């Protein structure tokens, strides 16, 4: 017990008495944690953007006017049975018209074009797929299968180029995000480790003296490890404050309006407190673990007396 007290006492005391050093270490570490947190949020945004893009890349099949509803419904059943398809919705000409009228309520010219013709729009099946990369294969199947004769066109043939580009962009974001994450993590770890190494380097004489008066290695090490963890905790507080301010003054008013409205439920999640808590948790964990391990590694060479 007395040893534990002395170790804690010594850690807090030298944290306080080496005020400037502690302050610098905390600032450096909080920067590293900020980088990490910003990336974490960024990767969530990228991920959800990829999801949104993918979910918007659906397939619609438009039918010839002579296709009967039974035929279409039978086709729907077959498509639903395909493993790569998540959902198929039948849109009758009437429903299509209804949607159109609703979307263009204020625009009389567009409404006049149709002139109340119930069959102006073709019947269609809207197909949601698990992975946008299967769309091409599906289209080939449909245009060659037994139902090919009633298929008029597909959304894919209309938007082929756009779909291809969006898909490529989404997969680039996904891969690039991972690489960027790895780089940011590495940078943060190196910053924290080097900060603590320098902090301990300036106090190598202290370690030597402790060794010479007969302190055991662990008795010397523990206060440094605890100091490293204290840096981590204070750095987390600091960077969380910055993130919180950014969240209130920047993210909420601007992102909510312009960016996240397109991200659907994820946008809401991004603005909620749960995410902030998650970020704090990650920071505390990284701060504590990296602070402690860095101290452990950095004291090692000065203990060889």
């Amino acid at each position, binding site marked *: 017990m007395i040893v534990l007290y002395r170790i804690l006492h010594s850690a807090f005391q030298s944290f306080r008495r080496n005020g400037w050093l502690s302050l610098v270490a905390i600032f450096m570490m909080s920067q590293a944690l900020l980088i990490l947190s910003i990336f974490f949020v960024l990767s969530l945004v990228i991920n959800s953007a990829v999801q949104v893009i993918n979910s918007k890349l659906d397939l619609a099949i438009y039918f010839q006017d002579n296709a009967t509803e039974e035929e279409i419904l039978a086709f729907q059943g077959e498509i639903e049975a395909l493993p790569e398809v998540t959902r198929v919705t039948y849109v009758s000409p009437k429903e299509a018209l209804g949607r159109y009228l609703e979307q263009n309520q204020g625009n009389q010219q567009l409404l006049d074009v149709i002139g109340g013709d119930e069959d102006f729009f073709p019947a269609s099946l809207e197909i949601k797929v698990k992975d946008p990369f299967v769309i091409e294969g599906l289209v080939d199947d449909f245009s060659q299968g037994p139902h090919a004769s009633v298929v008029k066109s597909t959304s894919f043939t209309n938007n082929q180029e756009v779909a291809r580009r969006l898909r490529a962009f989404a997969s680039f974001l996904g891969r690039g995000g991972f690489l960027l994450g790895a780089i940011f993590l590495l940078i943060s770890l190196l910053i924290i480790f080097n900060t603590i190494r320098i902090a301990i380097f300036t106090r190598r004489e202290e370690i030597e003296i402790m060794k010479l*008066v007969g302190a055991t290695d662990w008795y010397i090490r523990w206060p440094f490890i605890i100091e490293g963890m204290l840096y981590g905790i204070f750095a987390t507080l600091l960077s969380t404050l910055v993130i919180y301010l950014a969240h209130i003054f920047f993210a909420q008013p601007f992102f909510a309006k312009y960016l996240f409205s397109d991200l659907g439920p994820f946008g809401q999640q991004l603005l909620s407190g749960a995410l902030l808590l998650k970020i704090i948790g990650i920071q505390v964990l990284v701060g504590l673990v990296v602070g402690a391990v860095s101290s452990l590694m950095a004291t090692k060479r000065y203990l060889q007396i």
Partner: protein
Amino acid sequence: MIIFDKISKFYGQNEALKNVSFKIRPKEFVVIVGPSGAGKSTLIRLLTCEEKPSFGRITINGRDIHLLKKKHIPYYRRQIGVVYQDFKLLHQKTVFENVAFALEVSNKPPAEIEKQVNQVLKLVGLEKKKDSFPHELSGGEVQRVAIARALVFEPRLLLADEPTGNLDPKTAWGIIQLLIKINDLGTTVILATHNKDIVDRLHKRVITLVDGKLTRDIRRGRYDV
């Protein structure tokens, strides 16, 4: 009884000690003299287990100190007191804390530490400065703190490596008198110095090192290199 048995120490090609042998009896006061680079500090560092000899062995009361396991070295160091030319005090600790630290590492209860530290600070005449930090003290006072720390374990062996090197002659002699007092209380003292005045005034046993070789060992010696 401390026995240096044919000790040689190499730093790379450089031979700091060459086949040095001598014995020190309990409660002796021994002065090790010689010019800078003669091997005095190496000799002290061998005794604190900061270095290992290249050849030969050093035994204290029959035990070879360089056969100690690494984890036992801290406990060995608590049995010897060491005073350095550059004091080696912890700058961010007060006088009291610097001395107490040596006891804290050995797991002593606070009340006992308080008592022992106050006692030893009184012995070196610093009981009034115990809450000062080292940078607030004079050179002589700082060295007294270092001596207090070395003594707080009540060691039977006190090593002093140029303890007066950074002090003016008057202050230096005060430190030497303190060492004599400690020796009178029953502690073996090994003092390494190249200060001629001090050696001549001391009239104690003098071991002379020149270029790593033991050239003279005289019971009531003078500085004569």
